[in-house]
């Protein structure tokens, strides 16, 4: 299971950021060729990202590239750089319809064939940034077997809704809709960026909310938030002890060929075992929660 708690945005035009972002150990790093790159640097950023992707520095970290939309003059060239460079995942911004995902899928497959990369090896992630995207979230999430996750992007979404960021009420429906779409499609789901870098308390409050809602993690623009986020997602000692007992009971039942898993005289369902395994994965990745 791949953990997707943190996706760190790295401007594709910044050689310094591309050379150092791996030290912060995010679960995913997202090299951005879209909003973070000015029009006159699009060509150079594409080359920087193409070469950075091929460095061993990012081994063990999911390498995502946010391309420009395919209906811009940059999108298809970005895709060439990302796929030929070896990106694990392409993040499509401003995804409003499943047709956009299918168009991306076809373009990705053409490039994979052209450059000799295994067809199907490039994953896709759709960013939902509008009311249309939220309404179509399930169709988008199910548009391609390559989709491993969808992400809600808050800024453009609240603009489209003619409102602004506040206490989270403005995002409540979108969060729930996008998250339900992801879960129904059995893929991961990322929450929005928290942009007030000095408000640690507000960040942790938001992380607590999105963790309880069920998000896998958040998109981030500041590496300082990674450790806070990972710690918030780390299990407590009590949660880990319980998860170990559940997994042990499941393994025992499997060895004995029993169809029913029991612990302390109570039956345990499959999803409880799956959740226990996720808890152990999180503990292995970042240890126990530091209070």
């Amino acid at each position, binding site marked *: 299971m791949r953990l997707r708690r943190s996706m760190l945005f790295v401007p594709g035009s*910044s*050689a*310094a950021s*591309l*050379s*150092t972002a791996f030290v912060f150990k995010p679960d995913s790093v997202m090299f951005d060729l879209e909003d973070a790159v000015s029009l006159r640097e699009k*060509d*150079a950023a*594409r*080359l*920087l990202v*193409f*070469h*950075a992707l*091929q*460095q061993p520095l990012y081994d063990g970290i999911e390498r995502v590239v946010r391309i420009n939309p395919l209906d811009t003059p940059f999108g298809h*060239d970005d895709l*060439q*750089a990302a796929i*030929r460079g070896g990106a694990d995942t392409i993040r499509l911004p401003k995804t409003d319809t499943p047709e956009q995902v299918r168009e991306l899928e076809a373009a990705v497959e053409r490039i994979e064939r052209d*450059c000799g990369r295994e067809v199907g090896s490039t994953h896709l992630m759709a960013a939902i940034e509008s009311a249309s995207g939220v309404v179509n979230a399930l169709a988008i999430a199910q548009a391609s077997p390559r989709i491993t996750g969808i992400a809600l992007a808050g800024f453009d979404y609240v603009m489209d809704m003619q409102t602004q960021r506040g206490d989270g009420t403005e995002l409540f429906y979108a969060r729930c809709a996008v998250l339900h779409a992801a879960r129904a499609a059995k893929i991961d789901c990322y929450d929005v960026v928290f942009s007030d870098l000095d408000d640690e308390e507000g960040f942790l409050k938001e992380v607590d909310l999105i963790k309880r809602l069920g998000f896998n993690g958040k998109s981030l623009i500041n590496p300082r938030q990674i450790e806070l986020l990972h710690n918030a997602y780390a299990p407590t000692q009590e949660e880990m002890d319980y998860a170990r007992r559940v997994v042990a009971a499941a393994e025992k039942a499997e060895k004995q060929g029993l169809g029913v898993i029991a612990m302390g005289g109570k039956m345990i369902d499959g999803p409880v075992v799956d959740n226990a395994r996720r808890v152990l994965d999180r503990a292995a990745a970042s240890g126990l929660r530091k209070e």
Partner: protein
Amino acid sequence: MLLKQEALAGTLESSDLFIRITPSDDPLEIVIESEVLHQFGKQIRATVEEVLDHLGVTTGTLIIQDKGALDCTIRARVQAAVMRAAGETTLDWEALK
């Protein structure tokens, strides 16, 4: 690749490098300034020459101010400078290894 105009690429920020490329009819001249020239000068020059060779650049002048760029950054910046100098907007990805 034929260089048609002067072009710039990169920045003077740490971990980057700044390149000025100028077309001429004279054989290729590469000038490198770097705080780590003593340690990595040969390596930087070898990378630059390899990239230029792949792109078929045999004439012109490159002035490079290195600020501790990784090999991958050097490759990207030289390629960007050459593409801009050649006025190329369509990349031959096979030539950009």
